[in-house]
């Protein structure tokens, strides 16, 4: 049975499709989180690791 209460909730209770605004906002938050890590650059441990690696056939292993 539909009551006034369920009618009031119906818009928000089960979104079939998110509005563009909501999607844009979620996307913005996701990129903020991700880019914050990206902007930290390459930690020394990885620069050292990559520079240290001596791949077979590599003459400038450094």
């Amino acid at each position, binding site marked *: 049975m539909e009551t006034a209460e369920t009618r009031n909730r119906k818009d928000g209770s089960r979104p079939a499709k998110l509005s563009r605004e909501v999607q844009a906002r979620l996307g913005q938050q996701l990129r*903020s989180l991700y880019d914050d890590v990206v902007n930290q650059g390459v930690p020394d441990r990885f620069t050292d690791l990559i520079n240290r690696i001596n791949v077979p056939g590599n003459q400038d292993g450094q």
Partner: protein
Amino acid sequence: MDEAVRKAVLGAVPSLRAFAISLCGNVDRADDLVQETLLRALANIDSFQPGTNMSAWLFTILRNHFRSEYRKRRREVEDSDGRYAETLKSQPDQLGHVEFNEFRVALGQLPADQREALVLVGASGFSYEEAAHICGCAVGTIKSRVNRARTRLAELMSIEGTDDFGPDEQTRAVMAGGGE
């Protein structure tokens, strides 16, 4: 190792870390995952096809390694010491601190396959086709996972329509270019 290859690997590290953190939910374990990925990749660098996308190649190795070795331990100690938040030095100013944290928690609650699809497409900048290749599934599967991830995120954050944004949120969205 070819200098161009070395540079390409180095250049991919920042986004590789970001992806690893989104999978592990813990910075220390994510960095271990990146380290193991790099060692594997460099040991098998001959199987990299020059001219193809180095990032996609590394993401594939990382994702497979995570699936086989890390997933069972996944997020069990998620940010127990608060290091994740601590690492995020420049908390996005345009987003409220509370809302930002809420988003991070909600993202961590998504099923792993939905989260990785959302991150690959929504943050790493891969196409649906590239994401499908990295995850070893069909393009349609990626699309559906991304859609389900967005819907679930909105549910978890109780954002179910534009009405749920308060006046402050709307103002901020407009100022950030998200509105009209």
